[in-house]
Structures are given as structure tokens and as C-alpha cells.
């Protein structure tokens, strides 16, 4: 066997990326760690408090509530957007003039900046001038997202579904388009039902893109800030104060840098853990099914 000499030149190619990441992520993260164990009254003066902020935070009801809201929100978003995205992708045409029309229509919501999406829905849902709010009220349905927390939740969830299902659709559509015709022809010869084609051909072939879709949608929904901030500002009461909104209130509103840093770190660790679990589980299923398939 010929031993190939390892070429270490590639490290120089990675160096610029490493520097950019160091300046944009690693050094700020280190600073957050430093802040989380200290108290400050401004003027760059810091006082050591040890693990007190973490202890306070882990025992605070405000944090528990925000965390719970965030988990419920992400769970609802994934439960709606992933199946809906797959369904729309399956229903989209594969050839003809319908393809560009569908793709562009699907891509439109993704092109709108997040705060604009928030503003659109904020106005759309208003009872006095908004099309949705006004119509619902005229129909006799009691809908007011500024006073009713259920209405606020529904508005934000529908807004997120409107904004981000397209991403899942486009990813799934790309996955579906990459399946060679031979698979469908084989299924036809075997007399496979529509459900069997979906279960044994389309779903396994969409595995990779679905992994990306689930990860992206989970991370984005778990970190959602702009849209609920614009629509409800965390209200009514605290009913839509998700983790990021609470974090910003703490860090910038109250200027409690220490507790906010502790909260960011716990937030970061939770996202890291869940993403790792999703990634490991889903890529493992992928490997097993590809081994079983060949």
C-alpha cells in the first residue's frame, strides 16, 4: 500500500475563516462568560459574584416561564411547518410553466426583512384598520391580539408559518427533484400505492434536506426575536415574552449585564444540546436506512 503524505497546506486556507470566527464569535463569547460571573455598575468596573447569577436565574420563575414559552413555541412551529412544507412540496408541479411561478411565489416571503414581516402582521391583525382583525371582528369573532394572549399566540404562529414554511418547501422540493425517474418507474411496475411511494422512496430521499430544514427551523424559532417584538412587544402581559425578548429586556432595558450573560450562556447551551441531538439522531437514521436500502 502506498502511504500518501498528508498535506498540511490546507490549514493556511482555513486561517482567514478562523480569524473571522474568532473575532465575531469566540472573543465575544469569552466576554459573555466573563460577564456572567461578575456584576457591573457601568464605567467598566466589575465585581466578582461567582455563580450567583446562574443560581438566581435557575430559581427564577420569570426564566422558567420564558423558557417554557420558547419550547412550546418551537414545538408548535416544527409540528406545523415540517409536515405542511412536505405536503406543499409534494403538491408542486415538476415541469411546465407552473414550476417558476410556484418557486417565485414560495420564495417571496423569505425575501422580506423580519421587522417588515412583523409590521405587516401587526397592521394586518389590527382591529381598527387591519384587514384580518377588522374582518374577524365584523364576523363576530372576538379577536384582539393586544389584549388576548391566545389571539397573540395564534397571530405569531400564523405569521411564522407564513414566513418560514416556504423554506421547508423549497428544501423538500429540491430533495424531491433529485430523485431519479427510475425509482418511480420501478414503483409503478411493482404497483406501489401513493403512500408506499412516499414512505419508501420520497421520504428516505428527503432525509438530508429534512435534517437541514428541521435544524434551521428549530434554531430560528428558538431564537425568534424581531417579529414578536414588533407585533406584540412580548405582551399582552408577558404572554409572548420568549427567551430572546426577555434576554434583551434584561440586558438592554434593565442593563443587568451579569444576569443577562448568564441567561445567554444557558440559552446557548440548550440550543447547542438540542441541535446536537437532532443532528445525531437524524443523521444516524439516515445512515441506517441507506445501509438497509443498499
Amino acid at each position, binding site marked *: 500500500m502506498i502511504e500518501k503524505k498528508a498535506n498540511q497546506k490546507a490549514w493556511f486556507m482555513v486561517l482567514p475563516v478562523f480569524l473571522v470566527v474568532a473575532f465575531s464569535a469566540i472573543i465575544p463569547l469569552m*466576554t459573555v*462568560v*466573563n460577564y456572567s*460571573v*461578575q456584576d457591573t455598575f457601568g464605567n*467598566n468596573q466589575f465585581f*466578582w459574584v461567582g*455563580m450567583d447569577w446562574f443560581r438566581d436565574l435557575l430559581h427564577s420563575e420569570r426564566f422558567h416561564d420564558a423558557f417554557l414559552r420558547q419550547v412550546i413555541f418551537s414545538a408548535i412551529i416544527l409540528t406545523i411547518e415540517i409536515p405542511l412544507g412536505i405536503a406543499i412540496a409534494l403538491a408542486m408541479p415538476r415541469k411546465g410553466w407552473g414550476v417558476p411561478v410556484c418557486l417565485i411565489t414560495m420564495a417571496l416571503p423569505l425575501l422580506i426583512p423580519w421587522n417588515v414581516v412583523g409590521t405587516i402582521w401587526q397592521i394586518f391583525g389590527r382591529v381598527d384598520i387591519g384587514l384580518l382583525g377588522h374582518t374577524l371582528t365584523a364576523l363576530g369573532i372576538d379577536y384582539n391580539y393586544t389584549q388576548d394572549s391566545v389571539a397573540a399566540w395564534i397571530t405569531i404562529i400564523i405569521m411564522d408559518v407564513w414566513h418560514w414554511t416556504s423554506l421547508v418547501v423549497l428544501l423538500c422540493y429540491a430533495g424531491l427533484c433529485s430523485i431519479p425517474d427510475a425509482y418511480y418507474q420501478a414503483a409503478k411496475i411493482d404497483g406501489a400505492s401513493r403512500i408506499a411511494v412516499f414512505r419508501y422512496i420520497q421520504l428516505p430521499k428527503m432525509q438530508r434536506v429534512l435534517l437541514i430544514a428541521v435544524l434551521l427551523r428549530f434554531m430560528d424559532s428558538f431564537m425568534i426575536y424581531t417579529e414578536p417584538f414588533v407585533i406584540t412587544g412580548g405582551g399582552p402581559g408577558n404572554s409572548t415574552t420568549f427567551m430572546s425578548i426577555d434576554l434583551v429586556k434584561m440586558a438592554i432595558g434593565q442593563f443587568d449585564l451579569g444576569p443577562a450573560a448568564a441567561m445567554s450562556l444557558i440559552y446557548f*447551551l440548550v440550543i447547542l444540546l438540542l441541535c446536537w441531538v437532532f443532528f445525531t439522531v437524524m443523521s*444516524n437514521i439516515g445512515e441506517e436506512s441507506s445501509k438497509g436500502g443498499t
Partner: protein
Amino acid sequence: MDLSWMAWTKPTATFFIIILFLLVTMTIWELKSPGGAPRKGILQFESTRGDRLFISLLGSAFIHIIWLAFFSLSLWWALVLAGIYAICVFLWV
């Protein structure tokens, strides 16, 4: 270079130096025996040395958080527990 804006403390500096030390150790280990020693452990998925370090560190962070949330004893016990956990991860995961 003025690093006062980063608000360094001795304990946090020690923490990051240990992380750096771990990364350097892993690099040396990788150079001594390349390939990362992949294997399928008790969790039924393939992991390399780097994966095991990641699982150890992430798990240790959560051990400390859970300790702070539920126990009032010193955090050093959590560190001992995290050490045992890391050894178990490197042996069996």
C-alpha cells in the same frame, strides 16, 4: 493590547486555558494516532475522539447547571461528577 473591556477574571481565564489545553492535547493525540478512533459505543452511534470530548464538555456544562438548580452543596462536587462522566464517555460512548 488593552483587554479590560473583556472583563477577565482569574477563574474564567483558567477555564479557557484548560479548554485550550484540551484542544492542544486532542491535536497531539490525533497526530500520534490519526483517524480519531471511530467506534460505535453504548449510545449506538459512531463517535470519534473529538465527538467524545464534545459530549463530555456539553454534558459537564449541564451537570453543573443541574447541580446549581437542585443542590446547594459546593460546585466542586459537580466538577468531580463531570470528571467521572467524562471518563465514562471516553471509555464507553
